[in-house]
């Protein structure tokens, strides 16, 4: 039981920290700074927060595997969509985890692999976050009570704002802002339609792929 709570808590905190990492990464690449937060501070907090995300997700995965409630194997955390417990939604988490590991490893080896290769891989950060976000909404046991839903949506708003700001600061701002706005609008609309019909609707636990043997006892 304690492990299950730890899984949920570390998942929630990891999403917040991943959001902070992504937003600071965008602040960093836009070269924003102030007298009190010079460039190297933004960069250092971005790096440190990202390492905390890796640590939290490691605990998140290990406790989910060790806990006896949900039948999740260690492989399910790395190989997506192969599990028996909410396979699609746990699978999105596995995809996000894989990308996170790729981002962390290439960043730690940046001096060896060179800036160009590192930068190419680092674009995956923009996929890592949405996967984690959808994993939180689809798998999360705390969406229905509301607090985790609002926390997740606040994270999404922060990311949307940061991405828009980066697009507006880019060389081809006109095209970039139009494109990003379109993508954000579609994503927002899809979420507004899906959340009430999906995770907030009755029977989501069954629909999302919880084994029927677990559905009797509430937890």
């Amino acid at each position, binding site marked *: 039981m304690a492990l299950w709570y730890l899984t949920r808590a570390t998942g929630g905190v990891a999403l917040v920290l991943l959001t902070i990492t992504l937003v600071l990464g965008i602040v960093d690449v836009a070269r924003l700074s102030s007298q009190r937060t010079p*460039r190297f501070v933004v*960069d250092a907090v971005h790096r440190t927060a990202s390492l905390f995300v890796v640590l939290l997700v490691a605990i998140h995965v290990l406790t989910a595997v060790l806990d006896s409630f949900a039948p999740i194997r260690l492989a399910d955390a790395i190989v997506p969509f192969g599990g028996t417990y909410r396979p699609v939604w746990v699978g999105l988490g596995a995809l996000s985890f894989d990308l996170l590991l790729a981002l962390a490893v290439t960043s730690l080896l940046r001096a060896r692999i060179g800036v160009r290769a590192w930068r190419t891989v680092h674009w995956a950060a923009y996929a890592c976050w949405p996967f984690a976000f959808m994993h939180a909404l689809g798998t999360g046991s705390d969406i229905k009570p509301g607090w985790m839903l609002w926390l997740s949506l606040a994270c999404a708003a922060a990311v949307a704002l940061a991405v828009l700001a980066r697009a507006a600061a880019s060389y081809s701002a006109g095209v970039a802002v139009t494109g990003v706005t379109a993508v954000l609008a579609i994503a927002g609309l899809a979420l507004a339609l899906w959340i009430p019909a999906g995770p907030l609707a009755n029977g989501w636990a069954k629909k999302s792929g919880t084994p029927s043997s677990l559905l009797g006892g509430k937890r």
Partner: protein
Amino acid sequence: MRPERLVVDPTACTAHGMCAELFPEWIQLDDWGYPMIDSGDVPPDLRDHAERAVKMCPALALKLRRGS
């Protein structure tokens, strides 16, 4: 330890200016934000700062080189 100097690869540098924030004793920025680096050997007591500036350079343009 052999003496080392800080050098910048001018084609790799993209004027982030982080090195001057981290190691102002040795690095100053010109009017365009590119580093002007003291060409002398980095004294042992400032080596940590030099290494940090090298490690944090976003473009990996700053390097410590063995001097003569």
